[in-house]
């Protein structure tokens, strides 16, 4: 066991620094603690501005307040899936094939799925209040739902098992395929709706002039949820690292083989 630590460190580069300093199963550093506190403060701020300080909308009344959660969660989910795609590419195309990129991709996808779920739920609630229905076959809505299902599938693939690098490669390919798939889905759904010309739902925020305080609350929401995202991903990534290590410790012989692989020699 003790021999594995320096080896992992040399393999993971940046990743190992927090391990060497505080390897006791603690996943926080000074920076992530700061980020967490920032997220809490901003969330409290968002609650104050979203629920109390910002005015109700003329037409939507207080249901407009859902927007302060809905828009930031959607934004964070898109950001998260973007990070997943980028990290997948980094894993696959960098020569080192560092697992840290794979874990960032996985952590980001998990957080993204959670936020996308929140987006869908808050959107449905808002739709019920404003449009009278929970769901409309709008292109953007449909694409969002597909995005959600696609990344649920991505997370399922990550749990298929096999070695860490097998998982990383499989999910890396899938992460890139999702980047290909989503524009196609969006394009086809858009074409489908535009040709149908049935209940096409006008986007209400397009023609609503936004009050300054409302815009500010929305902005607070974006920053609050973004910092929450980074905090969650950072910690999740580190927990994943510990999970990987735990699995490795169970399989000492397999580890020896893998080490032989990773240092360039071929086993057998």
């Amino acid at each position: 066991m003790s021999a594995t630590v320096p080896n992992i460190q040399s393999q993971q580069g940046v990743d190992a620094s927090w391990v060497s300093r505080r390897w006791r199963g603690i996943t926080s550093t000074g920076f992530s603690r700061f980020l967490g506190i920032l997220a809490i403060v901003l969330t409290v701020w968002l609650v104050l501005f979203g629920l109390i300080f910002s005015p109700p909308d003329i037409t939507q009344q207080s249901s407009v307040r859902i927007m302060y959660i809905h828009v930031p969660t959607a934004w964070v989910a898109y950001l998260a899936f973007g990070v997943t795609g980028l990290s997948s590419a980094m894993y696959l195309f960098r020569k080192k094939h560092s697992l840290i990129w794979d874990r960032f991709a996985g952590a980001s996808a998990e957080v993204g799925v959670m936020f996308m779920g929140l987006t869908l739920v808050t959107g449905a609630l808002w739709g019920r209040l404003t449009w009278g229905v929970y769901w409309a076959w709008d292109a953007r809505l449909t694409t969002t739902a597909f995005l959600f299902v696609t990344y649920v599938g991505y997370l399922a693939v990550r749990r298929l098992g096999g070695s860490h690098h097998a998982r990383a490669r499989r999910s890396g390919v899938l992460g890139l395929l999702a980047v290909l798939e989503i524009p196609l889905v969006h394009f086809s759904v858009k074409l489908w709706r535009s040709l149908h010309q049935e209940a096409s739902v006008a986007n209400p925020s397009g023609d609503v002039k936004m009050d300054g305080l409302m815009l500010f609350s929305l902005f607070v929401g974006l920053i609050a949820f973004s910092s929450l995202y980074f905090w969650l991903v950072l910690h999740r990534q580190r927990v994943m690292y510990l999970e990987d290590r735990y699995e490795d410790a169970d399989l000492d012989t397999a580890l020896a083989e893998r080490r032989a692989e990773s240092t360039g020699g071929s086993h057998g």
Partner: protein
Amino acid sequence: MWQTARLVAAKDLNIEWRSRQVTNQVLPFAGLTLVLFAFALDRDDITARVAPGLFWLATTFSLIVLVQRAFAVETSDGALDTLRVAGVDPAGIYLGKSLALAAQLIVLEALLLLGVIVFYASHIRPAGIVLVIITALLATCGLAFVGTLYGGLAAGAKGRETLLPLLLLPVVAPVLIGATRAFEAAFGTRGGAGIRAGVEISDGWPWVGMLAIFAAVFGAAGVLAFGPLLEEA
């Protein structure tokens, strides 16, 4: 690469020819789906109107079964590993398996089309026959490329039977939409009021373009990605 593709495709079709598993199980399954759709929708005028969609739904469901089968053949005896160890070009394997899958799908679609005409009283407008054929070919290419790619991704993993539909269905949604709309144009079945109201054949061609893009994009992605997927899978 093409040589390998041809050999792999011939091998797959040969296996099918001898085992008759698709002929005896998947074709009846697809036909059964058509009958069950008719039960669920109950009214003749509705089934006639949504026939193109039901056709492509039945094809999509059959695709899942076909992909399972195509990779069950490869993984049961570690055949895929053997191919890899033997240094066979993964792009060739990918194209070969896609080709075999496409051939099976085409046969299935031809029979399903017959079933749709018989059960749902659909008729293809004479001018739409070319549209139907080209749509079917391109959609089949797209389905086969995507099916083989995601089949390879899930191959050999535990729980792939349940995983594959989850991965595959969202991806093939554009094909389902595009091919259905193109078929509607050829059948003349879209429109609000009457069954055969208000859709021109020419409305179908933009969708054909989309199907072509889809097939091209995923074909290229599959050729590139299949190698890394097979390694250490």
